[in-house]
Every structure is written in C-alpha cells, then in structure tokens.
C-alpha cells in the first residue's frame, strides 16, 4: 500500500454492547470523549463525516431475496457506526483509529481503505482483457501458421 498519497478510509466501529456494565460517570466520559474526538478530527479536516447506525436493521440475502432481522442486537461483530477519514496514509488512519475512546471498553475499529473501483469490476475487466489478449494471440498465431 502506498505511504505517500492522501487516501480515504472508512473506520467501522464494531460491537454494540460495550457500554454494558459501565458506571454513569464512565459512560458520560466515554461519550463526551467520543464526541470531542469526532469534533477534533472534523476541525483538523481528517474526518468528513460519520454516523451512528440504528441497532436494528434487516439483512437481505439469497436467490429468494429473503429478508431477515439483523444484525444480532447483541454482537461484538455488529457495526455500530462509522467515520469517513481522509488520511495521509494507512499508518495515519491506524493512529487515528487507536485514539477511539471505546477501545478500552471492548469496542473494535476496522480500518478499510476506500477503493476507486470495485474489486469485482476490476477482476471482470482483467478477465475480459486477458480473454481479448488471448483471442488476439491465437488469431495472430493462426495467421502466422496459415502464411506458411
């Protein structure tokens, strides 16, 4: 991964029950620390947006397009919210993620680079190019052979 270009990253905050068992004072502190962190990153131009997500939602899957309730309300994996970051490089994005006030209570932060192009679309284009190149190569081979 490049270490010189400015890139966008998504921080995904995982775990939606880490506040259980905290005292009101601890909760008050972590919530205000979190808000202050968000405001500081926005003021520094490092964060351009972010939102908490409602705990309940729906999961759509399968050929039958089944709709189920989800994600599980009490989960360490469930995504509880996100920040959209613009960082110098991945290291800076990681350093910012390490400042998350929820970490000491069990919240987990996933740092993901935002891609310019969907990986599937990229693979699709690569396959087509390869196939095209293959077809051109065999055509050339055929022409070479038929010339002799």
């Amino acid at each position, binding site marked *: 991964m490049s270490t010189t270009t400015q890139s966008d990253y998504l921080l995904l905050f995982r775990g939606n029950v880490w506040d259980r068992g905290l005292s009101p004072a601890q909760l008050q502190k972590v919530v205000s620390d979190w808000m202050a962190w968000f405001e500081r990153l926005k003021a520094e131009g490092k964060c351009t947006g972010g939102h908490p997500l409602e705990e309940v939602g729906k999961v759509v899957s399968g050929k039958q397009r089944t709709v189920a309730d989800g994600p599980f309300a009490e989960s360490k994996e469930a*995504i509880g919210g996100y920040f959209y970051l613009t960082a110098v490089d991945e290291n800076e994005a990681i350093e910012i993620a390490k400042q998350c006030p929820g970490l000491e209570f069990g919240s987990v932060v996933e740092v*993901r680079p935002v*891609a310019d192009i969907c990986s599937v679309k990229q693979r699709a284009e690569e396959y087509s190019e390869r196939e095209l190149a293959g077809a051109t190569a065999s055509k050339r081979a055929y022409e070479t052979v038929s010339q002799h």
Partner: protein
Amino acid sequence: MLLFRGPHWDKGLSTNELQQAMNEVMAWFEGLNERSKIKGAQPLGGQGRVISGTDGRFVVDGPFAESKEAVGGYLILQADSLDEAVEIARSMPALRYGVSVEVRPILAECPILQRHPELVRRANHRVAEQLWVAAAA
C-alpha cells in the same frame, strides 16, 4: 446505509457471466442514481486492519477477504422508510450470486445516549448551567 457483504461473489463465474452480472450491478446503481436515491457509495479495498484493546494495542490484518461476512462496500441511501430501503436492497442483482445486503438506518444520535436518558438530561443540565452563567455575566 446498505452494507454489501461477501466481496468474492464473482468466484466460479465465467467471463461472460461476470461481465453480465457487472453490467446488471452498474445499471442498478445508475438507476438508483437517476432517481436521486444515492447520497454516497464506495467500494472498500480488500486490505484493512482491525484495531482493538486499550489505546489500540492490538492491530491485526483483516477482515478476512474470503469471508462471506466481510464488508466489500457501502451505499448511503436516501429512502423514505426502512421498507423502501429493504425493497431497494432486494433489487440488488448480485444477491443471486451470494452477496448479502445489510440495511441499517442512519441515526443522528448515538444509540448509547438513547439507552441512557440520564446522560442526555445531565448534558442538557450542563448546557442550561452554562447559559445561566453566561446570562449572569
């Protein structure tokens, strides 16, 4: 917010099938865009890091790229209701190939605050106190 899970749904498709699936997905995005339903959408890179522990002590590679649960991209939808958002999610063409779509309403306020109304009261109280101090001064 729509979260697209399972970014390796193209495995096992032929070049033609993949091309067609991709065209369908792009047409789906464009259709939503024309109806002004998209506020933002990005694919996410396969590499990433997962940070946990106090002060972010633990930094590991992740998520597992091959995982069906891994988030491969997101779309911020402008929908009138959760039902409309779910209907839009159900029309996503790659569902047929194993992608799943998580539909999550975006909140203005952290749900932790909603669970603990006393924090909101206390915060409001502090604001009122500051106003009172400002007014007195």
